[in-house]
């Protein structure tokens, strides 16, 4: 067989392969993308952006509409998607917090693990920031000060199960330093506490910190990410700064109701795989300083397992009771 024929045969097979895929499921109604926040919340904004991109890049024959199911710390969302068992036109956006939340509450009857994992989409890195006039130039400075005055330094953050506290627990364990954690329910209050000098340090999303740094009110000591973010080329990652702690990411991704057929799952997987390869998606990631965290359905299931185990261990060490 000469080269041309071989090339033709290969080309035909390559062309036929997607056709085989396409024989499976195709949506015929608008897709419902369910989120656990109200309008304007984190996942709501992401869902709308995804819907807009899918439409722009013509990745699906139907529209995607966002459905808000807030309440119960994300549990109303999980229960709603679970109720739609077998429905091929429903999807949901999850956050990693839902795994953590299900570990600590007995009231939850249906958990994220009962849903079908489709894809992990983004990793949200964070940076460790202090007020600009603080005496710390590096993270090591802060840790040293914390060791000298155990329990005196303070960090503002979200709830005790949030990533802010996870980073703190990991750092405290690995260095032996000790500092207090003060929870504030809103991002604005956390920043105000830092800028007002009421706390010494906080873990903050790079996007939120950007303007304060530009105005000279905040300084970033280290970044909680695997690689340096392009917005912070001169700030060391945790590992580079000498702290050998795992980077526990804040993740967002897609799940589907339980009990959907395999072709359905494959269709969704393919849809999101294509989405993450588009230029619009890359632009979106760059604008929001997210990291591409794409995982396939099977990989996501494995990630959930690993993440649960890791969280269970961290929460236990922090003194929080886990019930499953």
């Amino acid at each position: 067989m000469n080269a041309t024929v071989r090339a033709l045969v290969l080309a035909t097979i390559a062309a036929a392969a997607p056709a085989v895929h396409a024989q499976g499921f195709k949506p015929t109604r608008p897709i419902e993308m369910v989120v656990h926040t109200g309008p304007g919340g984190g996942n709501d904004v992401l869902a709308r952006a995804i819907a807009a991109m899918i439409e722009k890049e013509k990745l699906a024959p139907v529209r995607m509409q966002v459905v808000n199911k807030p309440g119960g710390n994300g549990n109303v969302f999980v229960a709603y998607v679970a109720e739609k068992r077998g429905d091929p036109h429903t999807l949901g956006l999850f956050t990693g917090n839902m795994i953590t939340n299900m570990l600590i509450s007995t009231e939850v009857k249906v958990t994220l693990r009962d849903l079908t994992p489709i894809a992990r989409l983004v990793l949200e890195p964070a940076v460790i920031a202090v007020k600009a006039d603080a005496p710390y130039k590096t993270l090591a400075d802060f840790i040293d000060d914390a060791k000298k005055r155990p329990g005196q330094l303070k960090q503002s953050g979200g709830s005790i199960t949030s990533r802010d506290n996870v980073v703190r627990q990991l750092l405290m364990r690995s260095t032996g330093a000790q500092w207090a954690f003060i929870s504030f329910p809103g991002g604005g209050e956390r920043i105000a506490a830092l800028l007002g000098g009421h706390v010494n340090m906080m873990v903050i999303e790079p996007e939120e910190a950007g303007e304060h740094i530009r105005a000279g009110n905040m300084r970033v000591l280290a970044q909680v990410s695997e690689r340096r973010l392009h917005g912070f080329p001169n700030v060391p990652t945790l590992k580079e700064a000498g702290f050998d702690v795992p980077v526990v990411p804040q993740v967002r991704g897609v799940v589907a109701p339980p009990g959907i057929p395999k072709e359905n799952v494959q269709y969704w997987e393919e849809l999101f795989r294509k989405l993450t390869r588009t230029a619009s998606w890359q632009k979106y990631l760059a604008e929001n300083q997210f990291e591409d965290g794409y995982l396939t359905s099977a990989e996501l299931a494995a990630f959930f397992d690993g993440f649960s185990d890791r969280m269970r261990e961290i929460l236990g060490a922090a003194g929080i009771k886990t019930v499953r």
Partner: protein
Amino acid sequence: MEILSSLAQGFAVALAPANLLWCFVGVLLGTVIGIMPGLGPPATIAMLLPLTFQMTPAAAMIMLAGIYYGAKYGGSTTSILLNVPGESASVVTCLDGYQMARKGRAGAALGIAAIASFVAGTVGVLGLMLVAPPLARFALAFSSPEYFGLMTLGLALVVLLAGRSVIKALLAALVGLWIASMGTDLFSATSRFTFGQMELLAGIDFIVVAIGVFAIGEVLANIALREGTQLLPVPKGLRNLLPTWQDLKDCRFAFLNGSVVGFLVGVLPGGGSTIASFLSYGLEKAVSRRRGQFGTGVIEGVAAPEGANNSETGGALVPLLTLGIPGSGTTAILLAALVLWGFKPGPLFIPENPTLFWGLVASMYLGNAMLLVLNLPLVPAFAQVLRLPVYVLYPLIFGVSMVGVYSVSGSPFDLALLAAFGLLGYLMRKLDYPTAPLILALALGAGLERALRQSLMMSGGNLAILVERPIAAVMLSLALVVLLIPLVGRLNAWRLRALEPDGG
């Protein structure tokens, strides 16, 4: 002066025909949707946000500001006419506004709400314009110990709202604190009082309790009266459908009170319009000569909270536009919107985007004026709702309550809670327990506990932190003064009685 020239440029932007139109549309849509109970400014803005994607950032910001004001005003309409709080901040308006409607003064109440909103809203924008940067820095000095003082002051107002029995008012407040602590504790991730229900993990929505206790409870109590076509009195004649000059005179302090309190509370990150309206109402009651009549239909009791509600808008924009810190749910959505358009609100926002900022300020003046112009003529029309026979009005209230609650969360469980709190509201009325303290404690309870625990964490367990900082100390002293007012009143009454000649 530089400010005047910047403002002039801002008006040039705001008065552009397209922008003017969007301002009008925003105020109109905001009012209409805000009338729906449960749908307050956050939900309204979020709903209409997609409409703004096609517009220029200036036009979009102007429309959103119009929606913000409109929604806040719209919330007071159902509060006054139907005793159904349109949104959390309008709950206080129910107290005197609905009573005014029952006495046939619905028009005056609606009118004064519009006027107070205009006056205080304008003051709020003035504040934003003139004192934003120094005030923002001041706001940063305000942290948990100061919040604790502020919340305690708010709760001390319970005593003023007591009515006849202080013990019952305190008990109602304690029940409110209990409801406020239902859910997942922020600091320890413990679930408290969730009775095994996963819907309770995030706590009970304030508006569900408010609508249940106020609206449903009131209807259940009134349905007991057998009178068939009992209509609420609607006086004829335009003179009676709008506030009188005497009314405006009575509200002089309320306008000032609402403007200042609302603006200052709005500036604090974490302070919201609900707290602003409660504090303003409490302050008005504390200094009023006819303090005992509050709760029976006193017009200042409508003017103060409605004013505070609107000037809070200007205040909340201070931390947002000068520091990039959203102070409330609504400003968080505005922040997201600004980011979507490519702006980055932060300390450098105003210096780098002067046209947008001053255009926004100018449009807020216009929005306030439009609110007044649009809504005052509608007042007589709205007041006609009260002409409906009660057997139509009461199902209407039920329906509006159900839709309002469901539209906020989409959860049938919240509807069940609505029924439960309706029953509670009915029982409280029957057993003569005042409902306002429960609602007040519910609004402030979570914040109070959080502020206390945060403060103690900051000081490492030392209670002194609550009194050693100047602002916190001032707040707590004021709270003490408030607690003493009824005591002084009682002492006076006792003294007067002691001076009376004995016997007959």
